[in-house]
């Protein structure tokens, strides 16, 4: 607007829109915008026409219909009488579970590998180089499949644990069974459980809430204790002995709570075709987790190495001059400064993990792609709705991860005054 009124009133000709440098950029932008909008309109129009031609409507009503199929890993209750919407929630939770597990494990592994890659020890340095080059240069799908194949082909079937002279046996005092379908682990249970509260979508275990509350309380008290010790040390120069008090504060309330609730672990027992009683951690989850972790850790290792490389050599030398050992130099001086270089690309790696977790279908892990984008899509035939919804959900998850990580990045980045 301003530009137009600033123009000389005398003579405005249409050709000036192209030949006058004052208007040209605006003209180009408007044309591009129009083209873009025309393209978008064409896509929508095409979709609407084709849907009409096929006699299909566009509706998300199917989400409230009975799903009718079963899912083998459920974090919250689900039966085949639940709705498609509920099945979507199960898939979403499974996606989040594997993404969270992989992000944590990949970060830990990646940082270790990245630091070791800079090690002056020749063999350690080369080995980690081999790791990085091997894992990041082979598609993640293959790693997932390799992990899954190892689990299914190498481990024994549950019926190998049966009989007088079983060919396979449970490990860790007969409490854990590694099979080619799942790993059966003891299930934590309570004799005097507090029950659950229903929050609409799912049930929350009051036992779990109580445990979290007690641990939080203990940690807070312990922090107070340490702060007090530091205050005493600052005042008198002598630090009071705190270790036994810390242990007492941290462990005793939790132990008392567990005893009060009647905590015990139910061992998995082979009954019929499968182990029952314990918790089954499916091999598809393990394979997906392992594949995503190993693959992404290679990238994170490179990011960490780059971040450390970005901290000037003088910092290390200064820390050494102060008498800090290499370990302390790394954790106190180098890593904190490297973080501001590391965190932004790390965000993309977390997003990659979340998105790559949709490869779950290859190993039969029922994530969002497996439920909403797989079985639900097929049984209802609502391709467009399911895919759009799935895209929207992945977009929302990614934006949330990136938002949270940006908050963290702001807290570690160099504060400029």
């Amino acid at each position, binding site marked *: 607007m301003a530009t137009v009124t600033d123009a000389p009133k005398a003579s405005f000709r249409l050709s000036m829109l192209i030949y006058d440098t004052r208007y040209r950029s605006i003209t180009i932008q408007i044309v591009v915008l129009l083209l873009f909008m025309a393209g978008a309109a064409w896509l929508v129009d095409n979709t609407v*026409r084709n849907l009409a031609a096929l006699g299909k409507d566009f509706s998300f009503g199917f989400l409230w219909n009975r799903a009718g199929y079963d899912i083998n890993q459920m974090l919250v209750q689900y039966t085949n009488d639940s709705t498609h919407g509920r099945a979507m929630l199960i898939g979403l939770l499974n996606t989040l579970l594997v993404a969270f597990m992989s992000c944590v494990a990949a970060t830990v592994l990646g940082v270790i590998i990245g630091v070791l890659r800079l090690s002056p020890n020749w063999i350690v340095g080369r080995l980690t180089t081999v790791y990085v080059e091997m894992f990041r240069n082979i598609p993640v799908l293959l790693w997932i499949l390799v992990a899954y194949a190892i689990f299914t082909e190498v481990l024994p079937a549950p019926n190998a644990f049966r009989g007088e002279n079983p060919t396979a046996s449970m490990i860790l005092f007969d409490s854990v069974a590694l099979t080619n379908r799942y790993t059966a682990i003891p299930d934590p249970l309570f004799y005097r459980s507090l029950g659950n509260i229903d929050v609409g979508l799912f049930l929350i275990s009051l036992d779990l809430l109580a445990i979290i509350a007690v641990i939080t309380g203990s940690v807070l008290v312990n922090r107070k204790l340490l702060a007090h010790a530091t205050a005493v040390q600052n005042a008198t120069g002598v630090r009071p002995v705190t270790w036994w008090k810390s242990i007492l504060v941290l462990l005793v309330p939790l132990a008392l709570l567990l005893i009060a609730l009647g905590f015990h672990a139910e061992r998995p027992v082979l009954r019929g075709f499968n182990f029952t009683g314990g918790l089954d951690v499916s*091999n598809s989850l393990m394979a997906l987790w392992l594949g995503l972790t190993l693959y992404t850790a290679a990238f994170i290792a490179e990011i960490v190495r780059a971040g450390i490389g970005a901290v000037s050599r003088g910092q290390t030398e200064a820390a050494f001059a102060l008498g800090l050992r290499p370990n302390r130099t790394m954790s106190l001086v180098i890593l904190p400064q490297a973080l501001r270089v590391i965190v932004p690309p790390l965000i993309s790696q977390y997003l990659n993990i979340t998105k790559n977790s949709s490869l779950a279908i290859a190993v039969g892990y029922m994530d969002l792609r497996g439920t909403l984008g797989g079985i639900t899509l097929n049984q209802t035939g609502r391709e467009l709705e399911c895919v759009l919804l799935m895209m929207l959900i992945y977009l929302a998850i990614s934006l949330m991860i990136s938002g949270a990580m940006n908050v963290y990045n702001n807290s570690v980045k160099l504060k400029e005054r």
Partner: protein
Amino acid sequence: MKNTVFLGTLAAAGLAAGFVSAATLDDVKARGELNCGVNTGLVGFAAPDANGNWSGFDVAICKAVAAAVLGDASKVKYVPTTGQTRFTALASGEVDILSRNTTWTFSRDADLKFTFIGVNYYDGQGFMVNKALGVTSAKELDGATVCIQTGTTTELNLADFFKVNNMTYSPVTIETNAEGEQQFLAGACDAYTTDASGLAATRAAFANPEDYVILPEIISKEPLGPLVRHGDDQWADITRWAMNALIAAEEYGVTSANIEELSKGTENPEINRLLGAGEDNLGAMIGLEKDWGKKAIVGAGGNYGEIFAATIGESTPIGLARGLNAQWTQGGLLYTPPFR
């Protein structure tokens, strides 16, 4: 000005490209090739041989349609589809006909907007287990891990069967039959469930088929048949009658051996109409040549019975009996409407 022209062209191109063309017959003729959606590989029903030539019971339908429409049974492009991708492939126009042991259900017919052109195999869902398990009935499968192909009706039948019998199970979802085979053989599941014919075909491909047993329970009705998109009745008619021609040929005793002889004209007017040997020109009514029926039967490799015997019958490794799939005159369910 130029932009306007460009936008106009773009819009016109968009409109032209936007519609899935209604006249599938014209498309196929113009292309000179039939796009036929088939299984990714199920021995006996649809599987490529070492030279990449597809053959099988479902493939015969593709050949029959291609022969009737284009006059050449080899002018088929086989598009392998999984349980998950098959309907999208058909709805999007990627394939002209889907001949991939697909169960005819109400919702697929009405809600997914497909037209089932008939039933070429009456099937039911069964279970296969390792003999070493000692299981003799599907009702003993409480607590079992079951491998199942995702995106199929069997998934829902399975849930219903276990619920009705008050049993529990743990599903292992797999994408293709080959994957299911591998998981089942590795012992990642106790039982493998799909259509009984599919189980027989899968078992035939095992190294030791005799170690596995198909349980007697058939837990569902699975009328399998080829399907096309809603909205093109002419194409649906062509494909429906190409398949019916194969069934009628068996009923009237037309075989690949005597078809040349019979197509010169017979006493039976029904055979004459089927083979285009008489006065009546049925082909013109569906936009094809007069002898389309003969071409379909020759292209498919014989009548329904011959195809059955050659691909999945008792003399093949798959060893399926005719059972329900015998002609109605033999106590089966195959019954084609008259060619009149």
